[in-house]
C-alpha cells in the first residue's frame, strides 16, 4: 500500500512539472494573437475542407491486432510470475496459450491485415 502511495504522489508530481512548464511559458511569453498568426498551418495555403479528415481502415486493424495481443499478454504475466512453482503441464498450458496468440498473428498476416498498402 505504501508503494502505491509513493507511486500516486509521483504520478501527481509528474503531471505537475510539465504543467508548471506550460504555465511558465504562458506567463513569461508575450501574448499577441491575430487571425493570420493563429491560422492553421498548411504549407502556406488556406485550409480547405474539414479538419477532421477520415482514415483508412488499416489503422483500425493494427490497433485491433494490438488490442488482442495486449489482453492475452496481460494474461501471461501472472503465469510468468508463478512460472517457477508450476509443474510441467502448467508450463505446457502457458505454451498452448502463446500458440493461440501466434495463431492470431498468423491469421492476421495471411489475411493481409498487416500489410500497409
Amino acid at each position, binding site marked *: 500500500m505504501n508503494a502505491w502511495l*509513493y507511486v500516486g504522489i509521483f504520478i501527481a508530481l509528474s503531471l505537475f512539472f510539465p504543467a508548471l512548464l506550460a504555465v511558465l511559458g504562458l506567463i513569461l511569453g508575450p501574448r499577441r494573437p491575430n487571425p493570420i498568426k493563429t491560422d492553421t498551418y498548411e504549407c502556406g495555403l488556406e485550409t480547405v475542407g474539414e479538419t477532421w479528415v477520415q482514415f483508412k481502415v488499416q489503422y483500425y486493424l493494427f490497433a485491433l491486432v494490438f488490442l488482442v495481443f495486449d489482453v492475452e499478454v496481460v494474461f501471461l504475466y501472472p503465469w510468468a510470475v508463478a512460472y517457477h512453482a508450476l509443474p510441467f503441464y502448467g508450463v505446457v498450458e502457458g505454451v498452448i496459450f502463446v500458440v493461440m496468440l501466434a495463431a492470431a498473428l498468423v491469421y492476421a498476416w495471411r489475411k493481409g491485415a498487416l500489410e500497409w498498402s
Partner: protein
Amino acid sequence: MGILSQPIGVIAEWLRNLLLGWGLSQGLTTVLLYLLGGAVVAILVQTWVIFLIWYERKLIGRIQDRLGPNRVGPYGLLQPFADFIKIMTKEVIVPSGADKPLYFWGPILMDAGVLMLWAVIPLMPMVGMDLNVAALYTIAVGGFATLGILLSGWSSNNKFALVSAIRTVAQMVSYEVPTVLALLIPVLLAGTMSLHGIVEAQHVWYIVFAPLAFVIYFLASVAENGRSPFDLMEAESEIVAGFHIEYSGMVFAIFYVADFLHAFTIGALAAVLFLGGWRGPGAESFPLLGFVYLWIKAFAVYFVGVWVRGTVPRVRVDQLMNFSWKFLTPVALILLVLTAVLDHFVFGLGAWARALSHLLMNVVVAVAVLRYLEHHEKVRASRRQMVAQPGQYPVARPPRPAVAENPTEAAS
C-alpha cells in the same frame, strides 16, 4: 547505519524525526517524505535532460563531421540554458479552432507518461519503492504517452497534425507488442514483476540469458519513442513536422524534453531489466556506487541509441510496420516459448550453467532466424528475376503501380 552505507535511509530517518518533532502526525510525515523524495527524483531527471540535449547535439554533430554547439560556454555546455531562456520568452500560439484544454493536456500527458516511469526504477539497493507489479506498470504508463500524442494531434485542428498523430499511434501500438513480449522474459526468469526483485535475481545479467530479448526490447522501445530511423511521424516531406506542428514556445519544448527523457529512460529500463541495474562491485555496501553503476549502464544504452540515430537512414512506413509485426513479434513469441520450456529443465542448475544454456538457445534461434531471412531474400530475388523476363513461364504478377505517398492519399 552509517551515512556511507545508508545515505538515503539516514537522511530520511533524520527528516522523519525532525518532522515528527514539529508535532506532525505519522501519516502526514510519510506523505511529506514521499513528496520530497519524489520531487528530488523528478527534478533530477528533468534537469538531466538539459545535459542530454547538449550531449546528443554534440554527438550527432561529431557523427556528421560537424562541431555541434560550441559558442555558449566551454564546449558549448551552456547552449541548452541559452535555448531554454530563449524559448521561455517565446509566444505560445494557440491555433484558432483548437480544443483548448485538450491542446494543453497533450504535451503534459506525453511528458508525464515518461516521467512516471521513474517512480518504479530502482535507483540503488534498498532505495525506492518496491511495487510488486512494476514491470507491467512500465507498460501501463506508456499508454498515457500514446494518449497524449492522439490528443495533441486531434486538438490542434490541423490535418497534418491529425494524420501524423494517427500514424504515430499506429506505430507506437505496433511496437508495444514486441516490447511487452520481450519484457515478459525477464519477468519469467526472475519469477517476479517487481523491478527490485528482477535486479536482485540477476546474479548473472539477463543480457547473458537472453541477448535476443534485449535486442528486441531495445529496438522496439526506440521505435516506440519514434526516433530515427523510426521517425516517420516527423517525416518532413509528407506531414510537415508531425503531430506537434501547431505547438510553439514552451509548450513545444515539453515535447522536446519528453523525447530526450524517453530516450534516456529506455536506457535506464533496459539497464534494470537486462544489465543488472545497480549491480556492480561494492554496490551492496555503498548504495551510492550502485546509483553510479545504474547511471553508467543507462547512459551506455542511450549512447547506442544516439549512435543508431546518427547512422541509419529512415525506414519506409511499410517496412516499419513489417519490422514489428513480421519480424520482432514472431521472434519474440518463439523466444518466449523456448525460454519457458528450457528454463523449466535448467532452473535447478547453477546460475552460470542456466545462463549458458539459455545463451546457447538464443544463439541457435538467432542463427536460425538469420538463415531463414537469407533464404527468404534469395526466394524474393529469384521472383524478381522472373518479373524481369516477361513471357517466360511462370509469369509472376506485374509490379504494382507505385502509390504516391502524400497526406491526402493517406487520409482518404
